[in-house]
């Protein structure tokens, strides 16, 4: 499998190149080790490697670190509960920033709505997208600075 080292790939892949999938990108990019560990603990690797396509709002390690102590530990101990929180960060379909410009909300794979606000910045609920439009073979990743929660 062709995995490009460390750098987030830009969107100028030619069809002949094997494009990494969502999981490959998260694994090979610095700053997503918590997310990768969580996806593994929740047994969602295969889902996120499937054809999809998915749009993933990917919280950075710093985003997870902002949660009070114990939050991640309890979730990692309980894979179904963790999976639910992670599924809230995933939307079915491939949406680039431009596709979302006029939209007010998306429905997550978890089932709850995710509010969007692209009027000033690119905001997903109470998170701000710090790096939009990372294209993967099976979807699109937008990197966010806060873990988003249902409600």
């Amino acid at each position, binding site marked *: 499998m062709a995995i490009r080292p460390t750098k987030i790939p830009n969107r100028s892949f030619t069809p002949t190149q094997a494009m990494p999938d969502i999981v490959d990108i998260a694994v090979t990019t610095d700053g997503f080790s918590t997310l990768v560990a969580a996806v593994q603990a929740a047994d969602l690797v295969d889902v996120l490697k499937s054809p999809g396509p998915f749009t993933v709002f990917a919280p950075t390690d710093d985003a997870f670190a902002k*949660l009070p*102590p*114990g*939050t991640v530990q*309890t979730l990692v101990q309980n894979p179904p*509960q963790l999976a639910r929180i992670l599924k809230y960060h995933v939307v079915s379909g491939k949406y680039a920033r431009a596709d979302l410009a006029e939209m007010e909300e998306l429905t997550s794979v978890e*089932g*709850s709505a995710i509010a969007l606000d692209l009027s000033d910045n690119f905001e997903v609920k109470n998170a701000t997208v710090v790096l939009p439009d990372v294209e993967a073979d099976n979807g699109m990743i937008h990197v966010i600075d806060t873990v988003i929660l249902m*409600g």
Partner: protein
Amino acid sequence: MTVSLPKAELPLIPPSNHPFADVIHRLESGGSMLPDTPENLMQIIGIYKAYAVPMDFYWRDLLYIAEQVFLEPLPFFKYFISQEYLDLPNHYAGDGADLRIWRGTGAAHPELLAFMKQGEVNRRWPKLLHHLWHDRINMEFAEACMRAMLWHRQMYAPVNKFDAYLDTEEYRENCDRAIRAYFKNNPAMLGLYKLFPDMFVEKVRELSYYSNLGLFWEVMAPVFFEMSDIYDEGGFEGVPDAMNFLVNGIFAVAGRPIYHHLYVDGECFEIIPKSKGFTWLYEAALPYVEAVFYRTAPFRGTKSYNAQAGQVPEVQANFHYGILYADVFPVGTAGIPPTLLMQDMVHFLPQYLKDYYQQHSRGKDDILIQLGITFQRSMYNVTSAVIHALRQALLHPLDDDNPKHLMANRQFFEMQMDRFIRPEARLRDIQSPDYR
């Protein structure tokens, strides 16, 4: 001559015009709905401790009823908890805990065990005599809270998926398997089940809420004990510290599974499996707060209501009979549930709180009212913690520098305070130390 004015930082958003603007500004600066005074801190921590002791019984017995007593047709002994459940190690305290944030051993609290032996009469009567004399932990209070959650179904839906699950075919099938196993040696009950399946399933729904509330309180008991210990060690500077401790606790266990298991001859039947992904925060804590703190049922102690005359709201969401609105007056009639809780807490007050009540109002004679009002103050603080936890989870930091974000926080706080505008709310009262 030039005068250099102190550089006052202009607030990024204008002040609120809400009737509770003062409280909202306090929340925006990281405070609680309860004013930050040493007296308030002392009261709420003392009552958390007095609450945690009976709660340590409530959660164990709720799980005992949900998992063992189950559909016992004549459940006379459901409050006679088995030794196994009295000894259950708490999942969130003790050396074997899933998460070791709170100290404590995980075993039943020593004051609880002492009380269960001797009771208020302080005599070693047989258990049945203590029970009939009502000299015991009042499990009826815990059941009233559970029933409030059951009555007010659909709370916090659709994010709360627990309640919707109770109406699924999958849940029915799980119930069916459990009921058949439980009554496998009881053809009479199996016959009744065949005739009235819905009634049985509805009873199991209630038992699922026993489990829900038990799992919720299993966490709260060690949290409150820990807060009492921290206070005794001088660890809390003020009411906001106590509130923030609760906020952190809410996050720490937010992902705890909420489930309902039944044990028949040691075999586990998963009525609501852990794999459904139901969580402590969404499926237990938030519905609990809504049902018990805000809504409950129209019994307020001295007053009864006439639903036909429109004195009770038609929409259940507008019910406002919870502790945040309660006229705390313990009479043994319409207001039984709060009366029972006060009676449970009076046995476990720390000395400083006993001394404090002695100095006010009618001293020992109206101690139940005094501690009930302290309890009300303490629950305004817990509600503040829930409001801040929601703000932290769904909105923005208090020190955010984006005015749009601060405005979103403001609107959230105002929306929460709107619920206390109605005259029955006690938010105004608790602002004054003289409300007792």
